């Protein structure tokens, strides 16, 4: 399966985290909130717009909690899409 950034996962789709690209602080913070390798994430809602730049934040579900974050973070979390 292909590895894609979480930001590209469509709403409602599920993915499995393969890795998080980013600084130590960010990776650490995300892992504290439940974003670890192999964790399953579901995109609940996305405010992304097609134009580049700040595409708007999204909400994902991970380990039973809903986390909102900016697209800047969503492009750093790499996932593999999982079939529902």
């Amino acid at each position, binding site marked *: 399966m292909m590895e894609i950034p979480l930001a590209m996962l469509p709403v409602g789709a599920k993915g499995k985290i393969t890795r998080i690209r980013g600084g*130590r*602080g*960010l*990776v*650490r*913070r*995300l*892992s*504290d*909130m*439940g974003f*670890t*390798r192999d*964790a399953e994430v579901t995109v*609940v*809602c*996305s*405010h992304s717009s097609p134009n580049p730049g*700040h595409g*708007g*934040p999204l*909400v994902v579900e991970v*380990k*039973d*909690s*809903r*986390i*909102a*974050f*900016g697209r*800047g*973070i969503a492009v750093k979390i790499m996932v593999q899409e999982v079939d529902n």
Partner: protein
Amino acid sequence: MVYTVALIGNPNVGKSVIFNSIVPGARQHVGNWPGKTVEKKEGKCVHKGTELKIVDLPGTYSLTARAVDELVSRNYIVEEKPDVVVHIIDASNIERNLYFTFLLLELEANVVIALNMFDVAKEKGYIIDVKQLSKQLGVPIVPTVATANEGLDKLKDEIVYAAQKMCHVTKPKINYGQTIEDAIDSVVRILKKDEKLPQKYPSRWLAIKLLENDNDVLEKIKGSKYQSELEGGITKSTEALGDEPEFVLADKRYDLVSDILATSLVKEAKKWTITDMLDKVFIHKFLGIPVFIALFWAMFRFAYDASAPFMEIIGLFFESLAKASAGIPNEVLASFIGDGIFGGLGFILTFIPPIFFLFLGISVLEDSGYLARAAFIMDRIMFKLGLHGRSFIPMLLGFGCNVPAMMATRSIEGEKDRLITLLVNPFISCGARLPVYILIAGAFFGPMATTAVWSMYFLGIIVAILLALLLRKTLLKGEPAPFIMELPLYKAPTFRASVIHMWERGVQFLKKAGTYLLAGAIILWFLSTFPWGAEVELSYTGQIGQALAPLFAPLGFDWRIVASLVFALLAKEIAVEALGIIYAVEGETAIAGALVASYNPVIGYALMAFTLLYIPCVATIGTMKKESGSWKWTIFQVVLTLVVAYVVGLVITGIGTALGYA
């Protein structure tokens, strides 16, 4: 013997609710958004003859040295060594919460777990084998539903047992697997050579934190004889692990959690929850913002309309009292009671109902879990201002009172982001300004009064936005810190909780009224009536007002307004109180009528805007100093608000005059 008990856990798991329930008389503010408790709170309780000191720590996701609030919580446990640490877990989000338990166990804290929101977990279809879980973790666990007061007695029992070291479960040794354990052991061996460090801190914890490259702990080993040896050991162990140790460890902790949950948690098929349903609308890409605006409009409309009859009643009450006081034989006393107390303080009390109802509306938004959603839907707009969604929460809270709003900025990461949010917060129109708007808009704008009041809120928001942009482009350049925030589950705000919440804030307002609005009324009356027998214009108040009036002449403000604004520095409501007293002493009872007779609507509108924008009050100045930790920024804010208020006032007067409304 008093035992110290710390309450800790992820944000928004019900720590404050538990604190309030077990500490008699405690009124820790409870809301449904992450980052609400920013300071530790202490309280005492006695359980079956044992005295307990309870400390409610700010909620955190981790115990690293990265964020201030996390360090506060960690230092408390590391340095103060409480007898018992109660880890409060959201049972409906047990996996992530148990990760935190491991952090506490690493700290070798005496942990008791409160498995809170047990009802929510059940509803979600989670069947948790509490006994099994307790055995595996080696920690006593009590299922609780804090909001319904369930399980709290049992929790207190367990706290006391744990404090007296009579725990009935034994702690198994945590095992992170051969490679990690070897790495930890090799660092521990070097640490053990030091005389002081292992005595002060658990060696295993120190070793783990050193491997995780924790700045605070790295600082602690500085000056140790074995510092270089330790550093060498850390490097070697890190190499042996192959990856950054902190990520290896985090993964391992989660692995352990899933192993444990494999035998103690059964998940039934996922049910469609209310949160899923509401989020379909509230955080919808296109519906989100219109729904938000509608909710806010409804809230203000409610505060304004629902309070009208109450205002009428309070007004009539004080009017009749003022009339009755005219019968007092002593002239000075009659003036003091009639003009000072009833004319001033009584007049301001008329405006309490809208403030109460506004607080009620904000409580409902806070308790329901909507606030975090509002932050999310506004993120895109906030980003354009160089901030992120999180900064929106303090802004919303500012509609109640700017002081707690400014304190809520603590959960914002990024010093510059936080400073910008602090600097523009006072422009958000708080409850205390509402009386001023209602008085003036009611006097000048008749059927358009609500619109005029409404426009003030917009003006405040627009000014805050423009200044945030300006600050981001000039003094506080930079990119906003990444936005990340948990959205809590929705909770139906109970009528009782919301009313209590409103009542408490309202009572704070009444206390303010009882103390310095009363003191203000007395001082104002004194300054406005003395020298005795002189016209108000020649009284001390008049002199102060007249001395400063020329400065404000371009805005059309006369000495009465200027004097009121000076006194309103104490608190914005005093502007109304001051006008009440000045006109009462002058012999005008109908203040609205007197205002219309003295000024034109343009001046009225400029006065509303000026009141909105200039220095909020002494309390916010103090808060700014405390939160920014800098007099420079505090003074900057005072000057900034004054300049902005003056300029906007001038613009309004200019446009109004040009359009012929003056």
